[in-house]
């Protein structure tokens, strides 16, 4: 499929909440620079999968290997892993007690202990790239949902992550704001950022994905290039899923 080295390798990942199995032996290999879009009905475990990748959810079995480092080993330093794995959530989760720039610089300055001038310069470049250079000193409550979500992306990017995880980042946005956020992600794809994207925006998925992963009941049901998946899905479950969407 690709000659790029594998950045993220997931083997037989199993996650249970009590008796309930959420991820049922899922395996996946993401090459560097590729964009994987994860689709699937709600409750199929796609959000949980992303959360397992940066240690927000403990897993019961299987292996996650990021850039050669086994994250499911006993003594994983999740704090250092999280600097390499950027994550943006569905809810606009900026810290309301800080300005935009303080939100962005918190990680670089406090976690990565970087030089303030250098981090500030990068933050401003990123803000310019998402068209929000003038909102540096605004508080989150003064921003629209779409702006907040773009800032949240910048906040994750300013840590210089190796991979970005997007968990339904447009799901709670007003429709007219979805586009501005998706464009930011599309630009990231063009720049070669490795990304795992959970979304319900099918048009966008088709446009941005190198590989579509269709999940059902905690496992990968079907995987392939977007054109194949959207025009001729192989499994009945995927056909059913796409039919429901074609209203």
């Amino acid at each position, binding site marked *: 499929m690709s000659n790029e080295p594998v950045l993220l390798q997931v083997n037989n990942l199993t996650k249970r909440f009590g008796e309930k199995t959420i991820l049922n032996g899922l395996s996946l290999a993401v090459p560097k620079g590729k964009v994987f879009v994860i689709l699937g009905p709600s409750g199929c475990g796609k959000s949980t999968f992303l959360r397992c990748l940066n240690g*927000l959810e403990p897993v019961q079995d299987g292996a996650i290997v990021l850039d050669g480092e086994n994250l499911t080993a006993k003594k994983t330093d999740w704090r250092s892993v999280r600097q390499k794995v950027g994550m943006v959530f569905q809810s606009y989760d900026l810290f309301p*007690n800080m300005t935009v720039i303080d939100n962005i610089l918190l990680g670089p300055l406090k976690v990565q202990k970087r030089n303030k001038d250098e981090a500030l310069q990068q933050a401003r470049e990123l803000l310019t790239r998402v068209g929000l250079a003038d909102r540096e000193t605004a508080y989150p409550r003064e921003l629209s949902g779409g702006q907040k979500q773009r800032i949240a992306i910048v906040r994750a990017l300013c840590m210089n992550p190796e991979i970005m995880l997007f968990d339904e980042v447009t799901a709670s946005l007003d429709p007219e704001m979805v586009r501005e956020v998706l464009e930011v992600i599309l630009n990231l794809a063009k720049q070669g950022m490795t990304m795992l994207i959970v979304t319900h925006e099918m048009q966008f998925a088709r446009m941005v994905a190198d590989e579509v992963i269709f999940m059902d009941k905690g496992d990968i049901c079907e995987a392939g290039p977007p054109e194949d998946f959207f025009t001729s899905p192989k499994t009945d479950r995927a056909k059913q899923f796409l039919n429901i969407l074609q209203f």
Partner: protein
Amino acid sequence: MLNSGIDVLFQGINLQRLLLGLWVTARIALISIILSFFFGILFGVLRTTGPKAVKVVLRLYLELFRIIPILVWLFVFYFVLPADFEINLSAEVVSILVFSLWGAAEMSDIVRGAVISLPVHQAESGKALGLSVWQLYRHVLIPQAMKRTLPPAINLATRLIKTTALLVMIGVIEVIKVGQQIIEQSSTEYPTAAFWVYAFIFVLYFIICYPLSAVSRRLERKWAA
């Protein structure tokens, strides 16, 4: 009759004595409030993130101070400790100790409530940035929780101030005790002394407690914006 009675306040050094009594009240209350808030925040945070055993102990501690009347705690520390354990503490130290323990217990519950009422995503996005638990509390959770803590914390502070009235019972010469002494000394000369002395004490308590409520309201308005 009532008109002439007000003179009791200005008789001799009565006014000075009352104000000195107020200073004792204010000093005990202020030190207790500061200690309460400091330990209350610490215990409150531990109750949201500490090891299970610590949580259980802190919970038990809170319940003990809620269930047992403060007067009983004062008696235990003032009368029982010296009698049975030969630990002699001055009435003022006992007051500060009991009030701080009580205040910290109540404050811990206020802080815990405020922290767990924050959206879970706040903690998660902080963790996703790689913040340590300490950094997460220091920069994200505590600043946000403090706003929610303010109204009940001010309420607690005024309760602590008002409850200093109980300290009469262990012999602290605070403002009410001084008032009682003045009333006893002057009741033949001024039959309405009780009215005027207590009215004055009422005003004194109001002067201490009202600014707290005013500050609280102002901060709430400022933070709500």
